[in-house]
């Protein structure tokens, strides 16, 4: 579990994060969404420790990450896997060597065991045939899958994905979402995804944090989002006529479920 308590971050005079608090639970896909410049990338960089925070606490399973020294942070970092927007694969290494790298650096066991783990991870992301290829020789979607394999090779407790669907076609995008969701549930990982992709929001978002101008504007699940009356959230998520119609269809679908009928009633009563 990752807990954020009143996170604040400024660059000079400009305050990027204005006191964000939330809890990211294990076994769930936690999404950070928001328009460009809303502070979601800075928030993710603060959570993983690539940037320091000016105020507030970040707790990894109740341990205060912000108060740790470099040595203690290293221990936590070895439990983190991260998929970068551009995949961040090492150009001079093959796909297999990229996935092997964290194992070589930190992994215990024989070379045979390490190779077998790499093969297992590549099999999991369906890339066994590309093991000997270099990153320049594979497609964007394949690079993302290699990035996922590298991120999970050390069995992380926390998985971070920075815009995993950017630059991918809808079909590959779906494949990546499905893979991340499956891995999250399979290994009970606390997954945090920073995304713009509305398909990811509707399909994978167990817990969604909507950021608006550096603040947490809304928080809930992908089911609750379709009933939300938050105007800023609705303007962002259901921006087109097509998406608004899709939202109504989803509402109708959920309305058939008794639990969500009550939810909708409550929302309408509130209105």
């Amino acid at each position, binding site marked *: 579990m990752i807990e954020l308590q009143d996170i604040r971050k400024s660059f000079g005079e400009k305050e990027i994060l204005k006191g964000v608090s939330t809890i990211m639970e294990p076994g769930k896909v936690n999404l950070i969404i928001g328009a460009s410049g809303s502070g979601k990338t800075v928030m993710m960089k603060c959570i993983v420790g*690539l940037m320091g925070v000016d105020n507030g606490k970040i707790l990894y399973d109740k341990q205060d990450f912000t108060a740790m020294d470099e040595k203690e942070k290293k221990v936590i970092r070895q439990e983190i896997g991260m998929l970068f927007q551009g995949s961040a694969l090492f*150009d001079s290494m093959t796909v297999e060597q990229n996935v092997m790298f964290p194992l070589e650096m*930190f992994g215990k066991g024989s070379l045979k065991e390490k190779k077998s783990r790499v093969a297992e991870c590549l099999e999991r992301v369906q890339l066994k045939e590309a093991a000997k290829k270099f990153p320049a020789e594979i497609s964007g979607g394949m690079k993302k899958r290699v990035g996922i394999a590298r991120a999970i090779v050390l069995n992380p407790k926390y998985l971070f994905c920075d815009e995993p669907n950017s630059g991918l076609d809808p079909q590959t995008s779906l494949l990546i979402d499905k893979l991340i969701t499956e891995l999250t549930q399979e290994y009970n990982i606390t997954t945090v995804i920073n995304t713009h992709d509305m398909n990811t929001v509707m399909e994978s978002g167990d817990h969604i944090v909507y950021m608006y101008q550096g603040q947490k504007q809304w928080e809930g699940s992908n089911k609750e989002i379709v009933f939300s009356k938050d105007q800023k959230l609705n303007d962002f998520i259901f921006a087109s006529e097509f998406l608004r119609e899709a939202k109504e269809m989803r509402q109708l679908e959920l309305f058939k479920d008794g639990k969500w009928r009550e939810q909708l009633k409550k929302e309408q009563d509130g209105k």
Partner: protein
Amino acid sequence: MEFKFFYHFGNFLLMLKGMFSRPENMKMYWKQFMQQCVDIGVGSFGIVFIISLFMGGVTTLQTAYQLVSPIIPKSTIAQVVRDTIILEFAPTLTCIVLAGVVGSKIASELGNMRISEQIDALEIMGINTKGYLIAPKIMAAVLMIPVLVAIAGFLGVWGGKEAGVLSGIISSEQFMQGLRQEFKAYNVFFAMAKSYTFGFIIASVSAYYGYNVNGGALEIGKASTTAVVVSCVLILFMDYALTAILL
């Protein structure tokens, strides 16, 4: 352009300080160091070979052109060539060229790793990126550049001899006799002292500019150019300083 000397110097010292930490896996660091030794040493051998030969040849021809007096023995040409190459050309000229070859490679490699988030990926894995990426480059440069300078010295003198003999300026015996006349081993020590210093400058300055790239592809090019220019200026400055102190 704003000149922030103390800002860069402070950050440079912090970068060097940041390199010193216990390696996460000594075997991986060693592998990285050996890779850098190959890249810097073997990778630059070709250019060092070519410039040293021509540098020696040109020095012989120009020295002969200026020593026209019949009372000066021909072996003096070899003596002048030897000392010029050992004292100045082999360490300084070779390192100026290496600042371009090795320095720009280091700066653009690290710059590309920074832009494509590869350095962030290493940081998140819990690796000290300064220790893993920069320290092996500096150590490899400090080890391999003096080796290249020593090779450049030998090749330069050999090139000088061949040019002199082939053009009929001096015989092989006369040249060999001149090489032995008044040879001071201290000059070789001086050349090595310079090459260690220049090796450190080339790798550390280039790594500093590459590691701290901010922006896109354009900035990688700018960082690479700045790294080469700053390295060359520092090499020339230290060349003067070491000459004034040690000779």
